[in-house]
């Protein structure tokens, strides 16, 4: 296995009874890449991602994440990845600082390290005024940014983002993508699902899932050429409509 391939997936399948949610998908993601994982609602994106982050057992196929097998070494994978779910799973009844401390703690960071990280994070995101506010009282855009930063606390090799920018205004989305670029620039691989096709344009490479299968994979530029489309939106519509 080449060191550059941080995610290697081959024929990965997930069945729920008779229903095939993810149908033999195959792809690779390179280190430092921003990999867009697109698809309509119900196409199987979240299910596929849950297998990669080790909280859902695949039915068949092969997959390695950060060099570890998803079947046998899920706990090792978890040490090396960050995850931000659609629900921005921070604790609403804890303050920003307390959330940072808690997640830092369960990733096994030392007190000193947590303090450093949390100071840096607060400074970077300009959170000084709200650091001691309960997360529940913050606007969605803030929660998303904090949630993303928290998922990077333990310096993971790969960060998985499941529709991270749902429901916020274009400016906030823009700011969020600046954070993603920054993380990628520092060497973190970003695996992101989204519904916004303008965001797909920001990715190094994208895959488009339709009914559990990956129907297209490549750089946005290549995909636009391949489907003879002006933008990613048209590519997506052509594929999703079948």
């Amino acid at each position, binding site marked *: 296995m080449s060191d550059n391939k941080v995610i290697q997936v081959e024929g990965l399948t997930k069945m729920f009874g008779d229903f095939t949610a993810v149908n033999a998908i195959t792809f690779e993601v390179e280190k430092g890449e921003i990999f867009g994982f697109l698809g309509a609602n119900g196409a199987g994106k979240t299910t596929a991602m849950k297998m990669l982050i080790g909280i859902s*057992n695949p039915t068949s196929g092969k997959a390695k994440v950060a060099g570890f097998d998803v079947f046998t070494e899920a706990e090792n994978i978890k040490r090396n990845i960050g995850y931000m*779910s659609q*629900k921005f799973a921070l*604790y609403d009844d804890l303050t920003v600082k*307390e959330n940072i401390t808690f997640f830092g703690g*369960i*990733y096994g960071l030392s007190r000193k390290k947590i303090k450093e990280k949390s100071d840096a994070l607060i400074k970077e995101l300009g959170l000084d005024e709200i650091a001691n506010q309960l997360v529940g009282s913050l606007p969605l855009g803030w929660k998303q940014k904090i949630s993303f930063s928290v998922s990077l606390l333990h310096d993971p090799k790969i960060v998985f983002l499941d529709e991270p920018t749902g429901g916020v205004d274009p400016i906030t989305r823009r700011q969020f993508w600046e954070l993603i670029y920054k993380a990628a620039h520092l060497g973190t691989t970003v695996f992101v699902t989204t519904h916004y096709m303008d965001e797909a344009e920001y990715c190094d490479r994208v895959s488009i899932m339709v009914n559990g299968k990956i129907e297209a994979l490549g750089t946005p530029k290549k995909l636009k050429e391949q489907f003879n489309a002006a933008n990613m939106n048209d590519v997506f519509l052509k594929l999703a409509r079948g």
Partner: protein
Amino acid sequence: MKTIIYIIQKEFKQIFRNKGMLPIIFVLPLLQLVILSNAATFEVKNIKFGYVDMDHTTTSRALIEKFNASTYFNVLTDFSSERLASSAMLKGEVDVLLEIPNYFERDLYKEKYNRLGVTINAIDGAAAGVENVYVTQIIQRFNSNLKVDLLKPSDKQVQPTRIETIPLFWYNQTLNYKTFMVPGILVLLVTMITLFLSGMNIVREKEIGTLEQINVTPIKKSQFIIGKLFPFWVIGMGLLTIGLIIAKLIFNVPMLGSLPLMYFYTSIYILVVLGIGLFISNFTDTQQQAMFIAWFFTVIFILMSGLFTPIESMPKWAQILTEFNPIKYFVEVMRMVMLKGSGFMDILPQLLKTLLYAIIMNGLAVWSYKKTT
């Protein structure tokens, strides 16, 4: 170990920040202890007593006076006819009716024998039984006083010898019902609060999605579970402490046995309850489901615990079922240690069964908690 501390810290912060929950955890149970211990009594008192006196003689009035003097029968109603008395019984104005027939005194002295009519409202069978005993006791006492008066000098030689029993009530000499109930109700509160809190807590994290976030971290199952349950263990022990203080201060329930022994037993018992709570939360997706299941088990556990009804009088199969009821053991141990002063060796059987239960329940809970689905 450090990871566990972070979880415990977080849990305590969340518990004490939840202004709606705090009173539910600490104030309501204690209110319940005070109210239930006073109210949940099987003592039959203030019996509504009525009589129909057709005789109107010194003897009949003397008999009624006996009832009047009793502390159990405090409301006395005189009915002029049987018909009026029956209708009062129907309306619930009286529960016990005594009918003294015509010529009661005359026949008693002439024939040395007579009958009295006693009617008891027996919708509550247990209460009716007790009322019957009270009535019989009063009439018998009246009877034995009469006998002496009725004896003719010629009868002296046939004076019957009587066997009298003098009961000794051990462990609760005054037959104080509260002494019996308070330890039991304390058990209830410790159990219910810890079961509901622990069962609800993890399901809540499932609902808001934070459990998924926890599951993608490298945290070990055991670390998470210990960190999650420890705060509720502390709360359970806290409740026991406050409850014991109330038992002593308000109800003056004796504490004959060793306090450390009681805490030792409780510390293991709470583990059982927490294990059950966690087990429930692993198989439910919403707090509502968890609540219903927790309720289902608590009701069965409580009714079959010997707290309100003696286990000895249950049918055989039900008695076997109670062997699987942790509350039963806790109620037994509480009453034994507090009221009888039982020591370590006396409660050893209960202690071992509880320990086994704790190991099994927590084993099942840890086993059924899955980070990966």
